[in-house]
């Protein structure tokens, strides 16, 4: 960073400009507001505002049965909605003491890692867009589409997926879903390689991102950073490794770690994580294929109290009709208790803190939203840098407003 001209005190009246970067600015998605104090193009101070799309999910959740809270989690980090859904189901299962079959765990891992890839892909390509290279973003969009097609086959929707149920999935993966997964595994690595060739060693991109928005490991930990942003700063903390959930302990993968915590390292960490995710999906897919016969029909745990029965059973079987009625009419109380469950979300540790005092809905539910933490550090990251750096820093932190405001 070049030195700024220091005028002697009182020689010339030196004025700074206040610039509202957002909320109506293309890079702030209409929901972030940064009140920047600028000296020329250099940022003197930044004040960030949260809450533009606060929808009070935690409060809404207090009046809803567990299975109706899943759609709320979709709208947190909508770039990787399935991870949020799975995280929520895992939390419920922890509270209810449900053991999921291995096959369900592996299927969940496939979906979660697909979501991670789509999340990182968006983040990295948006960093590209914010440095001015638009092509990478539009080019990879059609390969994110492959992921969305898999979601579509598994759960019927694409962005806000509401995928899975407490105890497993709403239906088994169809052969077509596996076909699409194979297609993805076949086509995607090449594209990712191509995408990286465009950016990784691009001189302009490197100059724009190296040393921009850096954070030390200590500061990152103090702020409570998690996920790729913390790993880019050099701390190898990954929830999947430190407290494995959904049978992550059965898999071989490495946790990529950066050193400087700047935008370039964050880019590289996300990139490496995508490769790890591809390998995880491949492993999980192999494991899923090993289930033969009736085992390959298992797609949910046997918990009739919480798992909504298939519709055709409701019409034909007495038991199913009873459970369906009880679940839908909210006659099933959840046990009192207090659980904390966190998963490695698309952009950090996504935690769910659930307190139940019995009854049909949680007494209190708190989402630990990683973006909310990152945004607190925004001023420290951009202070003294240029206006353009602030934009890149914001996109490379992978700030998703829906998650930040909750």
């Amino acid at each position, binding site marked *: 960073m*070049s030195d700024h001209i220091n005028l002697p005190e009182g020689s010339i009246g030196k004025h700074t400009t206040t*610039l509202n970067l957002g909320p109506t600015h293309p890079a702030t998605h209409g929901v972030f507001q940064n009140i920047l104090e600028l000296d020329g193009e250099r940022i003197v101070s930044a004040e960030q505002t949260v809450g533009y799309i606060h929808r009070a999910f935690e409060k809404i959740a207090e009046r809803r049965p567990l299975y109706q809270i899943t759609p709320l989690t979709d709208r947190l980090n909508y770039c990787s909605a399935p991870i949020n859904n799975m995280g929520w189901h895992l939390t419920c299962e922890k509270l209810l003491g449900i053991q999921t079959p291995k096959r369900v765990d592996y299927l969940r891992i496939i979906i979660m890692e697909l979501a991670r890839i789509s999340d990182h892909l968006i983040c990295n390509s948006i960093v590209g867009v914010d*440095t*001015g290279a*638009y*092509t990478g973003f*539009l080019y990879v969009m059609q390969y994110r589409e492959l992921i969305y097609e898999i979601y579509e086959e598994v759960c019927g929707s694409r962005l806000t997926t509401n995928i899975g149920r407490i105890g497993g999935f709403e239906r088994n993966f169809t052969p077509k879903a596996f076909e699409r997964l194979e297609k993805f595994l076949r086509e995607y690595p090449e594209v990712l390689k191509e995408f990286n060739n465009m950016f990784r060693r691009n001189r*302009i991109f490197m100059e724009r991102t190296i040393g921009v928005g850096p954070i030390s490991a200590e500061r990152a930990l103090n702020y409570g950073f998690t996920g790729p942003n913390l790993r880019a700063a050099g701390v190898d903390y990954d929830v999947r490794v430190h407290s494995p959930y959904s049978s992550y302990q059965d898999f071989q993968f490495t946790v990529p770690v950066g050193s400087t915590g700047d935008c370039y390292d964050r880019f590289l960490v996300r990139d490496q994580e995508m490769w790890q995710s591809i390998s995880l999906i491949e492993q999980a897919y192999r494991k899923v294929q090993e289930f033969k016969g009736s085992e390959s029909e298992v797609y949910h745990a046997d918990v009739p109290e919480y798992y909504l029965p298939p519709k055709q059973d409701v019409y034909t079987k007495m038991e199913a009709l009873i459970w369906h009625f009880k679940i839908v009419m909210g006659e099933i109380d959840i046990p009192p208790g207090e659980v904390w469950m966190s998963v490695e979300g698309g952009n950090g540790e996504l935690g769910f803190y659930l307190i139940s005092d019995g009854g049909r809905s949680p007494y209190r539910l708190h989402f630990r939203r990683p973006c909310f933490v990152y945004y607190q550090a925004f001023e420290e990251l951009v202070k003294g840098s240029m206006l353009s750096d602030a*934009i890149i820093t914001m996109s490379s932190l992978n700030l998703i407003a829906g998650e930040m405001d909750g």
Partner: protein
Amino acid sequence: MITLLAIDWLFILEKLILIVSIISISLVIAMYETYAERKVAAVMQDRRGPNRAGPFGILQPLADGLKLFMKEEIIPNTSNRFLFVLGPCMAMLTAMMTSAVIPWGGKIHFTLFGADRWVSLQIADINIGILYIFGVVSMGVYGIMIGGWASNNKFSLMAAMRGASQVISYELPMGLSLIALLMLTGSLKMSSIVGGQIDSWYNVLYQPLGFFIFLVCAFAECNRTPFDLPEAENELNFGYHQEYSSMKLGFYLFAEYINMFISSAVMVSLFWGGYDIPFIKDANLAEQIGYNWLAALQGLSMFIKIAIFIFAFMWVRWTIPRFRYDQLMNLGWKTLIPLSLFNMIITALVVLLREYGWRF
């Protein structure tokens, strides 16, 4: 009466026709550059691009133009109304003026009232052609400055400041790289610079570094990626033309595309032989097919060369990221200016040694 007769009215008529046709050709080319840009971007991004208006979407620019005309025109209350209108006019005017000194082809020959007339396809063959281009191009920044300032918007103002400092910084290496070229050609006249390259080696072979510097500076002067800082859409909301709507916005966009066309034409004229048809002796060809056909072919050759450059502009835009403001200044002042000075000194030495009879 006598004075009126003494004026070569036919000459004025010829020039007027030439002016009108070159301006309209520039406009049409600028229109189709927008189409080409979208198609090129589409190819690079694996998309289809505009394909609804007419076959292959070739009527798209017309539809866009019509849309811009029909849009409501908004002038912000807090803006300076006079300057707000002046900004896009300046941008358009300077973009159009540059084409005056570029030779588009050889001479056309026809007989009128029993007199032979030779018409060169150049509006004004003035002996300070290159200086004229520089003068007008420097004026181009006023469009950005005035427009950005008059909008009374902080983003626009920032973009205007970026634009001004960028254009000024990059004009220096551009001028220095041309001084080296001028030492070789010995003339500022566009027609003689191009004429020296006809049926001969192109200037780019003598001045590869000069050409490279000129190319980089041309990108900067046209505000194209990687130097599109004044209109960085992610940082400054499209910068200086943020507050503009309707045809005023259209003027800014048009001016950018015309600038691209003209700077390609200048590069072709200065370094790539202008309207010379490559690999063929133009003089021999003239004997076979006549001068008028030759001029037409030369014009075509010029346009093909220009099209290649325009494609390069687009190719770069859709491939690489853009610089940051301080990096841009560093590149201009710390890399390009020393390089062009070096190029100038080397060229000067070679020219001097040649005078002393050294052979290279």
